[in-house]
């Protein structure tokens, strides 16, 4: 019997007969009222795996650029790579003479308070083959197991973000699997002078599983400037083994003029082939996620450096003095991190101001019961580092052995990928 298409104008009561397929265009906006479906009419089991993830869809931390523990703005960048302003986003700067300012800026499309702004301050129009410049975001493999990468059921993933610039430009967004010989895939995107949401869906990769650990497994990189080593091939638009020349084909150069700017926010990478609304979260929730990779004892708005007033840091710690034969007198102190780090972090110590005179870098202060707060007379050393704490050894010849003391200093812990 031939199938007949029926148009149902309304069903006053009762149930919809089985095996009726409703075409997309027959459900108009607003036509399904709030009481059209009973509670539990659609069970989670009827939704696909990833559609059930109503929260925690976005694997990018700080995609809205709201957290900047290190600095808000840094000028003269370009000579070396590193994390400079907004948390989790690393600037990749290889062999370019171009220089730029990186800023967390109060600008964005509707609903976004902040973005990452790059402003070219020194142009580089003579591009050597090995030049490379861009924004890198690295992800832990254990956070990506639901991508099912490297299996026959590997999911598509969708990257979305908002961008604008001073003028039209074309750049590349790339995913790279650092667990499997740098398999990669990329896509170009366009920038205009208005905020535009870019949506890119990458196919699932059935080759190469991601390690279930805390190391970097997947990199998201935005190529903004590159030499022929990265541009002379054909853009890698399907997952494949690393071909360096295929990574950034067809891009403009961010360093082509000192007029050039680049703004980005709302970065989201999620399972599925649909770019869902950006998953906003509270500032505190994002900040806590960022603390896994970077933490300081400076108040928000003050940045790790020598000479920040102690009251703008959480900087006083109890310590005990002991004497090490041949090593002077040490006041041992330790501090537990607010959030366990991804791995044992690199530590940097700083002098705080306002507790004793002196300005020698890398020296903490201690409270001398005879003379009050003093800067120590020798450098402060890191004695212990784990993913959960660090210990500092503060040295001063006047410290009395077995005395409980208070010391003060600044520190930063870096466990970035």
């Amino acid at each position, binding site marked *: 019997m031939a199938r007949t298409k029926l148009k149902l104008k309304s069903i006053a009561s009762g149930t919809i007969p089985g095996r009726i397929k409703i075409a997309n265009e027959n459900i108009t906006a607003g036509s399904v009222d709030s009481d059209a479906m009973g509670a539990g009419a659609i069970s989670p089991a009827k939704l696909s795996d990833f559609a059930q993830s109503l929260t925690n869809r976005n694997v990018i931390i700080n995609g809205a650029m709201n957290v900047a523990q290190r600095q808000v703005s840094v000028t003269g960048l370009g000579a070396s790579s590193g994390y400079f302003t907004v948390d989790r986003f690393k600037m990749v700067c290889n062999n370019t003479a171009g220089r730029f300012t990186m800023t967390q800026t109060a600008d964005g499309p509707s609903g976004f308070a902040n973005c990452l702004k790059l402003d070219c301050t020194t142009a580089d129009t003579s591009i050597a083959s090995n030049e490379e410049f861009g924004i890198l975001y690295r992800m832990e493999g254990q956070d990506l197991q639901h991508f099912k990468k490297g299996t026959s059921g590997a999911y598509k993933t969708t990257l979305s973000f908002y961008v604008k610039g001073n003028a039209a430009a074309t750049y590349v967004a790339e995913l790279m699997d650092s667990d499997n010989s740098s398999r990669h895939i990329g896509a170009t995107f366009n920038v205009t002078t208005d905020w535009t949401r870019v949506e890119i869906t990458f196919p699932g990769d059935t080759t190469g599983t991601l390690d279930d650990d*805390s190391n970097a497994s997947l990199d998201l990189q935005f190529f903004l400037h590159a030499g022929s080593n990265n541009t002379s091939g054909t853009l890698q638009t399907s997952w494949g083994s690393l071909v360096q020349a295929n990574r950034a084909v067809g891009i403009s150069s961010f360093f082509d003029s000192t007029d050039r700017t680049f703004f980005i926010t709302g970065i989201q990478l999620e399972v599925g082939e649909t770019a869902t609304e950006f998953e906003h979260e509270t500032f505190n929730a994002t900040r806590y996620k960022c603390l896994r990779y970077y933490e300081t004892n400076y108040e928000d708005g003050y940045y790790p450096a020598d000479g920040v007033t102690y009251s703008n840091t959480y900087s006083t710690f109890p310590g005990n003095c002991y004497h090490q034969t041949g090593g002077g007198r040490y006041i041992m102190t330790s501090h537990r991190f607010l959030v366990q780090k991804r*791995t*044992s*972090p*690199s*530590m*940097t110590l700083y002098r705080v101001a306002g507790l004793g005179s002196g300005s020698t870098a890398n020296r903490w202060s201690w409270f001398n019961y005879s003379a009050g707060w003093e800067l120590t007379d020798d*450098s402060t050393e890191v004695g212990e*580092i784990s993913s959960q704490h660090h210990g500092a050894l503060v040295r001063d010849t006047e410290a009395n052995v077995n005395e409980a003391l208070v010391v003060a200093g600044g520190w930063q812990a*870096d466990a970035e990928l």
Partner: protein
Amino acid sequence: MNISEAQYTTAEKNIIRVVDGSNTRYIPVDPNNKDYVEILEQVAAGTLTIKDAD
């Protein structure tokens, strides 16, 4: 990193003190720490030597 000096802080060799530009930093001997990995790369390339502890 722009390392000009590197030295273990103790005989146990579990922390490396480096002069990185104008900063003194302390790098744990941990293969998951990106800075330690970079130090190993520089040592392998022959551009950096880690001194023993004093």
